[in-house]
């Protein structure tokens, strides 16, 4: 299973970025390979319009099965993500990536 996180850093101890569209990084944890990769999304700060769909497109191309984030995607981004089979879990806004992964595994996070 490939799991995507919206984060403010690039490792397990990084905080979850509660924003979806304007998240600083996207972290992908590949459970089978036990491997983390990250995608720098910081250029999004200069985007005035359509940050949500743009980040959603990045997620679309990365093809994870699960997304763990804070507040959840807005309307336009959600419209993009409905084109995928992605399961979205929200409410991890105050956690580190590690805590968020554990919360997901133990069923604490809510599916949106």
């Amino acid at each position, binding site marked *: 299973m490939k799991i995507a996180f919206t984060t403010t850093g690039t490792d397990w101890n990084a905080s979850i970025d509660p924003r979806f569209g304007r998240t600083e990084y996207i972290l992908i944890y590949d459970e089978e390979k036990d491997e983390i990769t990250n995608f720098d999304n910081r250029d999004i700060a200069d985007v005035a*319009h359509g940050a949500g769909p743009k980040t959603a497109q990045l997620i679309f191309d990365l093809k994870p099965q699960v997304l763990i984030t804070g507040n959840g995607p807005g309307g336009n981004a959600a419209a993009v993500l409905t084109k995928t089979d992605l399961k979205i879990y929200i409410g991890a806004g105050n956690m580190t990536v590690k805590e968020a992964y554990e919360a997901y595994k133990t069923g604490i996070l809510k599916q949106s």
Partner: protein
Amino acid sequence: MKIAIASGKGGTGKTTVSTNLAKYLSEIRQVVLVDLDVEEPNSGLFLKGELVNRQEMYKAIPQWEASTCTLCGNCQKVCNFNSIMKLGDNIMVFPELCHSCYACSELCPTHSLPMTKLKMGELTEYKMDELNFISSKLDIGQEQAVPLIAQTIRYVDERFPDSILKLYDSPPGTSCPVIEATKEADFVLLVTEPTPFGLHDLKLAVETMRELGIGFAVIINRFGIGDAEVEKYCEREGIDLVAKIPNQREIATLYSRGELIYPHIPEFKRELELIADYCNRLQKEMSL
């Protein structure tokens, strides 16, 4: 001549000045008042007239023709607003983000993105004696005020010659809708309140007008509250301070009832006369 009534801060009295000034000036000549605050137009609450025209307003958005599309992705590359996106073998359009710039449509090598009409709002025109009042309202869910503002100005320009005084009740702030509403004005009246917040946003509005190269002057509303910093600022910067509308409970009461102020409050009318004189003088000086 076109005079825009704008502000930095919201709720400083743009509509109060616009509606009262328009009605007052129309007692002696023809005036056109245009409510360009299309996200929340409210001049119409204070002016009751006879309906002359009501029409739906449209903007242009691209519509994807899947059968001819080669999925080259050029459309998303040329879009500055992330309003069109290639997702696998799908092209997705976000009509609310689209600025109707036609780039994706015109630059599509297979012409698979013809522009189609999307209703974005409604324009109404009223007449009361010598005052023509035009107001546009954006539909709920529409995010782009700029196309509707631009089209409303075009509608007014086509119907009324330049010799008639046109007042634009502008949106608050200093972002795109304000630029659109003021950029072709001959002069801008900035309405502010004498508070630190009012001054802070006035400075932003002043910077904006200087950048646009449009002449402007300041009207203080609710004079008597706050401090003297706005006056000092205007003096320091050499900005004309046209009027100081007093802070009075009776004005707020009339406003809350949707009534014009100047027929009832002499102190208000005196300041309004100063604004009217200023506008008349401007028109003469600029020979517009």
